Every structure is written in C-alpha cells, then in structure tokens.
C-alpha cells in the first residue's frame, strides 16, 4: 500500500467509525423523559416554523431561547417536569442537554479557558 493510499483509507475508516460512535452518542445521549430546563431540540427538518412553535407551546411555560445555524435545531426552555419527554412525544427527533453540541466549536482546553475566564 502506498502512503497516499493509506492516508485516504485511514480517513475513510475514521470517518465511518466516527459516524457510528456519533450515532450511538445521539441515541444514548438524550435527556431522560422527566428532564426540564434549557435543552437543545432537534425537530424533523420538514417541519415549518409554525409546527415547531406548536410543539413547543403545548407547554405554557415553554419558550424559545435561541435558534441555531441549523433551522430545525432550537434551544428551548421550560421548568415543567417531563418537558423533554413531552417534546419527544410531540414529534421531536431528539432532546439533549443545551451544551451538547457546543463541542463543534469548543475545544477542551479552550472550554476550560472560557469557564475560568467567565
């Protein structure tokens, strides 16, 4: 095997492995049914903004905290117990801790730096 061939195969294998582990993390990293507070919600991508708000406002305490660069992913908040379970019941694909996907942008040491500096 040549150096270039090995590099390309390694990249492909690592990417496949990463997708597998990331899928497992998405599956097992969801918040429990009873969770409340600020959370990141993945709605089905074909949902309209109206449908997303409809799912959210079934809980009168719930509110939108912010949108993200992906239109179907919102950070939402409610203090009602069982808010995470309710969102899933209403059709959300996944409900995660609000910090869960900051890692796309935060590095480990940088994160410590940010928190220490805060």
């Amino acid at each position: 095997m040549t150096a270039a061939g090995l590099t390309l195969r390694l990249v492909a294998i690592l990417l496949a492995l990463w997708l597998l582990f990331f899928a497992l993390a998405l599956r097992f990293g969801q918040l429990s049914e009873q969770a409340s507070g600020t959370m990141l919600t993945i709605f089905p991508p074909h949902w309209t903004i109206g449908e997303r708000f409809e799912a959210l406002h079934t809980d009168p305490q719930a509110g939108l905290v912010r949108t993200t660069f992906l239109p179907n992913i919102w950070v939402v908040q409610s203090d009602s117990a069982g808010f995470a379970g309710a969102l899933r019941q209403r059709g959300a694909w996944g409900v995660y801790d609000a910090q869960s996907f900051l890692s796309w942008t935060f590095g480990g040491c940088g994160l410590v730096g940010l928190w220490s500096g805060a």
Partner: protein
Amino acid sequence: MERQARRPLSRAFVWLLIAGVLISLVNFGIRSALGHFQLPMSRTIDISATTFGFVLAVQNLIWGLAQPVAGRLADRYGAAWVMAAGGAIYALGMLGLGLSSGPVWFMLSAGILCGLGIAFASFNLVISVYGRVLPPEHRGWAMGLGTAAGSLGQFFFNPIVQPLIGGLGWQTTAFILAVAALPMVLLAFAFPRSGQAQASEVASDHRPLGEILREAFANRQYLLLIAGFFVCGFQLGFITIHMPRFLSEELAMPDYLSAWFLALVGAFNIIGAYTAGTLTGRVHRSRLLGVIYLGRSLMITAFLLLPASQSSVLLLGAGLGLLWLSTVPPTNSLVSHIFGTANLAMLFGFVFLSHQIGSFIAVWMGGLLFDLSGSYRILWWTIVALGVYAWLVHLPIHDKGRRLWSLQPAA
C-alpha cells in the same frame, strides 16, 4: 529516487501506522474532552473552576515531566510496553475520574494518573518510533500523520462526549472513556517490543544515561531546539487559554467568537501538521521551523495593528491553526538528525518538556499580567518577540544534506 519514494509500505509498517494514528487520536481526543466535565462536576461534587483548572495544569506538567522518562523506557525496552502501560494507566485515571468524590481524588485520577497515561501513550512516542523504524522516505509524512491524528481526536471525541455527559451523566461518561482508552493497550503491541528491534539499521545505545544526557545537553544545536520549542509552548499555551478573555474583555467581541476561533485553530491544525510532516521529508527543517515561528509573529503583528473585526479573528484562527502543531514533525526529525534515532524518544521528550514549561509559564503570566495591568497587550507583544527570537534561534541549526527545497523526499 522516485521509485523509492513510491515504494509500497510493508504490512508491518501499515499496522504500525494505523495503530499509531489510533493511539494518538484516542489519547489526544479523551484529553481534549476533559473540559466538558467541569460544569457537571461542579454541580455534583466540590470542584471549583480554579480547582479544575489547576488539576488540568498539573496534568500538563506531569505529561511534560514524564515524557523524557517514557521516552527513555521506550528507547531501551521497546515502545510497546511503555505505550501499553500508558493506555492502562490512562484508563485507570478515567475510571478514577468517574469515581471522584472531591478534589483529592480528582487530582489523583485526572491530574496524576491521566497525566502519566498521556505521556506514556503520547503522540510524541508514536512519532519518535515512526522516526526510528520507518523507511527514511516515509518518516516525515508519517510524523505528520501521527501529529494530525492527535488534532483529529479533538474533533472525534468532543461531539460524542458532550451528549453522553448530558444524557448519561459525567460519571458514566468517564467510565465509557476509560473503556475507550483500553484499546490503546492492544494497539501498542504493533510497536516494537524491544529497544534493539526498533531499527535494523540503528544500533542500540548502551552508554550510561548520564553520558547520553551530558552529550545531548552539551550540544548547542539541541539547546537551540529546546529554546525554540519553549517558545512554541509559550505561544500555544497563552493563546489557547487567554484568547477567549482577550476577545471578550479587550476587544468586546461576542462570546461565541472565541469558540469559533479555537475550532478553526483545531481544524487547520490537522492540515498544517500533516503538511509540515510531508515537508519535513523534503525541505531544510530548521528553515521550515524558522518560517513557522516567524509566520506566527507576522500574523499576530498584523492582527494587533490592523483594526480588529470578527473576520480578522477568524482569519487569525485559520492562519495560526496551520502553524499550530506543525512544529512537531520537523523538531522531532531534527533531534534524530543531530543524535541519530537510538535515544530519539527520550531526547525529544526533553524538548517536549520545555514546551510544557513554556505553556505553563505563559498561562500563569497571562493571568498575572492581566490582573495587574488589565490588558493582554504586553503578553501579545512578548509572543511576537519570542516568535522572532525562535526564528533567529533556528538559523544556526545545521541541516546537512538538505537543500532549501526539493521535490523529492529526502532520505
């Protein structure tokens, strides 16, 4: 020469490369994800931000201090045993982290055990073995690959670890990471199992340790490399830790910008490390290092003198990323050029120790000077000056037999 450059890698070398890449990726990946434990740990046990930062600082120092020891053991008894032990200690450290109930236990596990594990299974050993056993025409490329794999680990692990902490809790996630560290023990056995077997063309060095060290530390070029790598650690340590606060408090930039800055550094670091490794096999290595350090200084100078904007911050992140760990392959390669490869892992370990000391001082000085003056400006100009100093320091380092540039890989 052309035919030699394209000579296929043997099966044993392919396994060695794959194992090294995976060890670098897992080792660096787990380490880079430790920051995510801070908030959840502070909510459940008595771990403040200061304690957390201090433990990770100790981890970095232990990594630096243990690196020459790990290198010496690898050179003498074979990297396989050292790296296997490193993987096991790392896993034990993560297990201890999951069981932590307070600062002392946290220090023992994440600080001391993880620090030792990181050193004993580090990418420094991986690339030192690459530099010793691989055919000369593949060494630079392989070192770049091993260094880039470490950076890739950050992207590999962080998006996986955070949802797991959110969903399963930090203790369970620490146990999962302990299990993730265990494959390093098996992968290590793709590496040489004895000091002698590490390179057929290289005789083992049976001289006493003191004699080897006296010769090394009497060598002016080695001392210059150590001085240069100190600057590397100083620059990286300061920027990684203090950039977020500089951006938010001195430049009044939004908080998310520092996250994007660090992300760009990480992403471009993968490209930079790989490219530098490839160039290491082709160009005058000390000149390459000089260009990298001078490049950092020029970029930072431009950033400080031009009006700051979000675009300029992101541009700086991308540019510095290209020059981030790109110093590692040529530095390691120069150590082997000066002394041969018989004691490469240990001698590069001492160079790396100076990197960690530089990083520690920069992080500490950055905080101190900011508290005293309310500004990071002095430190920024210090790292610009140090970059120029590092460029000058590398000028007298000989790289015999190397032209400034060659399209052909050098032997």
